[in-house]
């Protein structure tokens, strides 16, 4: 029973992580890419909690806490960067921000 649950959640988080990676690769809107990164982080969180339950230890959940703290910091800085980019280019499409592309 316990193994089955663990495997189910590992598979689920694998699917979520892959979807997030796919999103980062195929979308060109910076905000959507940012959200796909959040999706990948959440897939990892799900894995951590699953293993925390599997081993009956609390450490995995502590790691999730730190991932959330880092994600919050990332959101603040990332969105500020998006705001600054928009101010200069009036767009947040990755294809429009290519001054250094030559």
């Amino acid at each position, binding site marked *: 029973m316990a*193994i089955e*649950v*663990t*495997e*189910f959640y590992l*598979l*689920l988080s694998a*699917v*979520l*992580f892959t*979807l*997030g*990676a*796919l*999103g980062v*690769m*195929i*979308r*060109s*809107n910076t*905000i*959507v890419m940012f*959200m796909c990164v*959040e*999706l990948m982080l*959440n897939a990892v*969180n*799900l894995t951590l*909690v699953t293993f*925390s*339950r*599997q*081993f*009956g*230890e*609390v*450490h995995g*959940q502590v790691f*999730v*806490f*730190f991932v*959330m*703290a880092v*994600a*919050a*910091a990332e*959101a*603040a*800085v990332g*969105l*500020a*960067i998006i*705001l*600054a980019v*928009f101010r*200069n280019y009036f767009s*947040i*499409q*990755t*294809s429009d921000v290519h001054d250094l592309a030559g």
Partner: protein
Amino acid sequence: MTFAMMFFGLLTVVAALGVVFAAKPLNSALSLVATLFLVAVHFAMLGADFVAALQVLIYAGAIMVLVIFVIMLLGLDEASAVSKFKVPRYLAAVFCGVFLGLLVFAVSSEGIFPVGIMDSVAGGASESNPGSPREVGMVLLTEFIFPFQLAALLLLAAIVGAVLLAHEEKRPLGKGRGLSAMQQKNSSEEELREV
């Protein structure tokens, strides 16, 4: 594995598909809110109550509100075309398919995990409840006190950085690429949309 787990698992995948494939950024964001909420449900079903509450409080309640705030502030809710600088779609699909296949293989095959780890504690795992705020807090504030303080420092740095990046010097109206120019652009866009 219960029926509830299957059901919510399926919902989570559907919501995540919405994040990746929704045409408009705001629909993506709302799908992500649903995904995060459903992940919180999974946390609760795995016995991690404290983390589930934090998930809703921090992710769904704070980070995503910030994202939606930015989408609304900048008026960015347009369907976006595929850019020429991105990875081609078929390549991305192939890569992700291979990656997912590897992960599934890793999870389902015997012998990937070190021998005995999966079996040794599996029996008593579901009996104890290590997910209460008291348990997590005890470990967080004793064993992990140094990373905890570092996380606080990181958040402070992030706040300062965000303010520095997003702060705009007040300029006289109608000059340069400041807020007023942005507003003009937005209003002209809205006129176009109405037409």
